[in-house]
């Protein structure tokens, strides 16, 4: 049985805005599943439907087999969520915030106390746990929210943009902590992000969402493999469409090449970068820069949507 299952999950807001359009996916127990896409792609709406704070317009979803619309209390009992925005009682201590979660999720007081101590240590907040949350930095508060979500030992943990707004060092530390906790506890994690390196680092599989629909779903490695082993980037001076046609005629580019601004990005499947550059020089194409590099998930997204993820975010 999947830990998370969505079938035709759809959300249309009043006014006809289709935020999520018939998502189908299943997440296995213990898997880390990434929903990748820019702001407005429908990631948070999807998380909202899975955590029962947004009512689906059509379709269904289940957590550990419990339908989120029919058995919402059971679905909520097996899950926890770390929200994109800070969701804490700032006037209470960190410990009081975590204890509140433990009580509401029915964790026995003794077990909760031990778990809080363990998580506080693992997430580096043991020293500040009895301080008022209003005095926490952004990174400390985010770690507290993760500890809070984990105290009830959820079968499914939702992390909605867990590192957004944090500085690089804290992001790195937080990702490291999440990876460690995941390995130790083996829980299912559904992570939304527009940071590609997060998805590559943490996720077993990634669904790329664009305009409310899944445009690709696979392991990061498989998604990258679709772009070949190497990418050629050619910055042209003139018409990019003409240049792309010319490269196609030379057998360098295929259907998976794409254009952003004046730059052509060409996945190289059967040609080496050196051979491609030589061919471009001999063809007399007017270029201002040529380089080659390894493909990233960013390239997968660009090819599928024609939008640069970081810019859109």
């Amino acid at each position, binding site marked *: *049985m*999947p830990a998370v299952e969505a079938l035709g999950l759809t959300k249309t*807001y009043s006014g006809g805005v289709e935020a999520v359009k018939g998502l189908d*996916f*299943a*997440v*296995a127990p*213990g*898997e880390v*599943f990434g929903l990748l896409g820019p702001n407005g792609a429908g990631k948070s709406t999807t998380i*909202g439907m899975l*955590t*029962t*704070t*947004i*009512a689906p317009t059509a379709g269904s979803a*289940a957590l*550990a*087999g*419990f339908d989120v619309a029919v*058995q919402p*209390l*059971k679905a*909520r*009992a*097996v*899950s*926890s*969520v770390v*929200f994109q925005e*800070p*969701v*804490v*009682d*700032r*006037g*209470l201590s960190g410990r*009081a*915030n975590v204890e*509140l*979660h433990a*009580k*509401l*999720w*029915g964790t026995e007081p003794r077990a909760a106390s031990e778990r809080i101590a363990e998580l506080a240590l693992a997430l580096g907040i043991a020293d500040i746990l009895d301080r008022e949350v209003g005095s926490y930095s952004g990174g400390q508060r985010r770690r507290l929210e993760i500890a*809070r979500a984990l105290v009830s030992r959820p*079968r499914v943990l939702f992390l909605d943009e867990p590192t957004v707004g944090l500085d690089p060092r804290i992001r790195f530390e937080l990702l490291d902590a999440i990876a460690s906790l995941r390995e130790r506890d083996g829980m299912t994690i559904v992570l939304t992000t527009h940071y590609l390196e997060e998805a590559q680092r943490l996720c*077993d*599989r990634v669904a790329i969402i664009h305009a409310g629909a899944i445009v690709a*779903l696979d*392991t990061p*490695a498989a998604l990258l493999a679709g772009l070949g082993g190497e990418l050629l980037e050619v910055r042209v001076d003139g018409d990019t469409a003409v240049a792309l046609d010319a490269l196609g005629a030379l057998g360098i580019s295929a259907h998976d090449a794409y254009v952003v601004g004046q730059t052509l990005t060409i996945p190289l499947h059967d040609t080496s970068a050196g051979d491609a550059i030589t061919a471009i020089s001999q063809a007399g194409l007017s270029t201002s820069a040529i380089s080659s590099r390894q493909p990233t998930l960013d390239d997968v997204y660009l090819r599928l949507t024609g939008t640069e993820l970081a810019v859109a975010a």
Partner: protein
Amino acid sequence: MATTVADQAARAQPAAAPQQIPTGRALRTIAGRRVALTAHNPRQIAVPLVGPALLALVVAPALKAATGGLNSHIDYTSFVGVGAVGLVVPLTCIFAGLSVLVDRHSGAQRELLAAPVPRAFLVLGNLIVAIALSALQVAVLIGLSAVRGGHFHITGAGVAWFVGAALLFTIFMYGLAETIASRVAKQEDYIGATPAVAVLPFFLAGALFPIAAMPGALTAIAKALPLTHALALMRYGFVDPHGTGLHDIWGAHNPATEAWLSLAVVAAYALAFTAIAVRTFTRASVK
């Protein structure tokens, strides 16, 4: 690290039902959170008491001295002492409703909405604390009024009428405050509604003078207000065993019957607005 998944489509039965927190414990937990947050902000307790306390301590004795009071068997200081309850309870409930807005905008409301407890409990847990706070403030208010010379006839039945009326009126007021909090988008809009729901009824419901002293049209409006019935009941319990205020409302001759009728009115308001508050909160919390 990769896990094969997509193909685990075989639909099995759901996992064993997860443990869920019993109703009493859930309500205690939610109410405990509100108590902790209120204790962190003691102004929420003190501020609603200031105006009504001034009424009981200063305004009522001064008006009594200047005008000779009500020219009846009812002592004016105690009359206004009870009347001030009609201000302290609405203000306390309005403050409690404001904290719901704060929860939504910068607090942990979304975490509570994701918890495995019925969302009605989030309203009811806060209601419990609003009742406790109101009870504390009403006790202080009546105590201050007594210290200032108010005469209260405390009997078992009188206490029951007073407590019943105050309790049901508090439930109604909290339901109203929570409903407004769930419907408005901004704190400014909520604050803007305060005079209409908390202060205006105080002047119409016979808090400072009998409703029969007003023009007929205003008296008719007053009779429809739950506060009018609650004040008449509370005075029937503590100040006026003859039920003059109840008679002004119902025009009958049996104070006990009139008291039951007024209690039924306040109870109906309490029940209706609690149901509306729960429904409004639940609908507003799910997009």
